[in-house]
């Protein structure tokens, strides 16, 4: 098993972009299969997962890579969702354009919040972003003429076009409902976001962000423009949250204050931590857990003879237990475990394998330490 992983690892392209592109293409195939092999209910669950994952991916860049915590990402998703609703309801803006605009609007909010956040640390930053999480839904209620108050803003989501139904029928002989259409929109957006972020993480910006997180003073003395880079991380992360909000708006067809409470922000944070802080794959896994674990636990509870209410109460308990267990047993999250497997060296036969030099530039810490034959 381990030597199989090592074999796959060696055959991946050397360039980060190439590797990420290949991964995303592979993921695309998996996503299409997943969506075509499951029923509309699962499709809509997967659509839900896609917008959680988009927001979580952005959050993991901010928190995991640059060390800034945010309890306000739920509110940023609200900004994206309301912007999306207002644009779509005009009836003239095509939805891809509206999604980009929603992301842009949220990015602008991110500049403002990020500029404040760049001066704050730890609990103070958490507090300031918490204020955002509390305040933004309140704004929607206060300006109820525009945002629809407590009832929220109905969003006229795009209908699946004929060509989409034709393509799906032609390729898979499946009916194409709007659940499936929304799931495709969500997952294509998610894959695009993952591709962009994974390259950003590996770029010079990613490295400087990590440097700031690890030793702020050293980075500052070396002449790194600390404030600007912190704001940039916040803006990138906010744009992702806005995009997630836009997808949410399409899928849920409603933007209402009750959908963007502090619970949403906290869920995103726990998803990121359970999956593995700072890892995009972890954000994906954490979001899957967020969406699929509670119904699964409820289902098990019902089978075990609990009443519906009791079974539903079991779900948050199970999520809490998972969170605590992961923190105790694998502080690196799910991706920490996966990474340990990926980089584990095959137990035998490494002497026969060719020296694996091109990987050394990429991850010297792990490859150097684990591959005695790899150094030239």
């Amino acid at each position, binding site marked *: 098993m381990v030597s199989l992983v090592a074999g796959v690892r060696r055959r991946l392209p050397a360039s980060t972009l190439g590797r990420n592109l290949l991964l995303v293409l592979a993921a695309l195939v998996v996503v299409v299969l997943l969506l075509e092999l499951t029923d509309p209910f699962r499709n809509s669950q997967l659509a839900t997962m896609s917008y959680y994952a988009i927001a979580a991916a952005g959050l993991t860049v901010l928190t995991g890579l640059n060390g800034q915590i945010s309890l306000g990402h739920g509110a940023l998703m609200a900004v994206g969702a309301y912007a999306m609703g207002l644009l779509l309801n005009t009836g003239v803006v095509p939805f891809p354009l509206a999604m980009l605009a929603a992301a842009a609007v949220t990015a602008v909010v991110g500049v403002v919040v990020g500029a404040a956040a760049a001066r704050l640390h730890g609990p103070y930053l958490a507090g300031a972003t918490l204020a955002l999480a509390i305040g933004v839904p309140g704004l929607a209620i206060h300006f109820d003429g525009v945002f629809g108050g407590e009832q929220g803003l109905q969003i006229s989501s795009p209908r699946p076009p004929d060509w989409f139904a034709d393509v799906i029928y032609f390729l898979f002989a499946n009916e194409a409902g709007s659940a499936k259409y929304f799931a495709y929109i969500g997952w294509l957006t998610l894959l695009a976001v993952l591709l962009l972020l994974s390259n950003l993480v590996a770029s010079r910006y990613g490295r400087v962000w990590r440097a700031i997180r690890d030793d702020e003073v*050293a980075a500052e003395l070396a*002449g790194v423009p600390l404030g600007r880079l912190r704001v940039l991380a916040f803006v990138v992360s906010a744009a992702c949250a806005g995009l997630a909000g836009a997808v949410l708006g399409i899928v849920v067809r409603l933007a209402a204050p009750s959908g963007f409470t502090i619970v949403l922000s906290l869920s995103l944070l726990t998803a990121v931590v359970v999956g593995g802080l700072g890892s995009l794959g972890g954000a994906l896994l954490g979001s899957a857990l967020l969406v699929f674990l509670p119904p699964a636990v409820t289902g098990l509870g019902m089978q075990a003879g609990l009443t519906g209410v009791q079974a539903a109460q079991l779900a948050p308990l199970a999520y809490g237990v998972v969170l605590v267990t992961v923190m105790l047993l694998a502080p690196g999250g799910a991706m920490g475990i996966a990474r340990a497997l990926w980089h584990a060296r095959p137990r035998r036969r490494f002497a026969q394998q060719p020296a694996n030099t091109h990987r050394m530039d990429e991850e010297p810490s792990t490859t150097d330490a684990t591959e005695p034959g790899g150094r030239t």
Partner: protein
Amino acid sequence: MTETAALEVRDLTASYGPVTALDGVTIRAERGRITAVLGANGAGKTTLLRSVSGLVPTSSGQVLLGDRELTRASAETIARAGIAQVPEGRGVITELTVEENLRLGDLLGTARRRQRHRLEQVYALFPVLAERRRRDAHSLSGGERQMLVIGRALLCAPEVLLLDEPSLGLAPQIVAQIFGVLRELVDHDGMTVLLVEQNARSALSIADAGFVLNLGRVVAGDSAAVLAADDDLRHAYLGF
């Protein structure tokens, strides 16, 4: 004290809340010389360096780099103006490679060609870093980490290099090697060095001049030879 000072600190005062850490400190670091700042724990040595490089706010006084006033400028501005500080406690980013650590200040910049040239100079000064350029900084020893942060400061092409306790926790042999490199930088490249040390004996052995701080005030300032020969001063403040 003659000619122009590369770095001049005039009447600098800084406090942490009610505690005055620097109380009207005036020192000068002559161009192309090593100037040591000596004193016991809590004398204000580190605060002096940190306020020169903009990490600690000052309440009055001036910091001058040549003719240029840098009082209360941001740390980034000061770094780009030509004052590079090597912080105490290494400041190595262990997740990045040695070369990325060196180029930290300009990873986002555009000055690639000049950078490459300076990088080669740093590698020539510290060959061990060249050997490990692609390795994670995580794998470096204490002495190598000190070399790495000095190298990083040199990549800013500074006029003045500030060092905070570079000998801390290092074997005498490594300290001698690092001090040798500092001497070489000063003698061959005309670098100005301001060296903060608790280890007064070894600092005075390579410094040209020195100042002694006690409780935030300058109690003595003279050539290194004079300071080292002053028995009273050595017993009272320098502990050797």
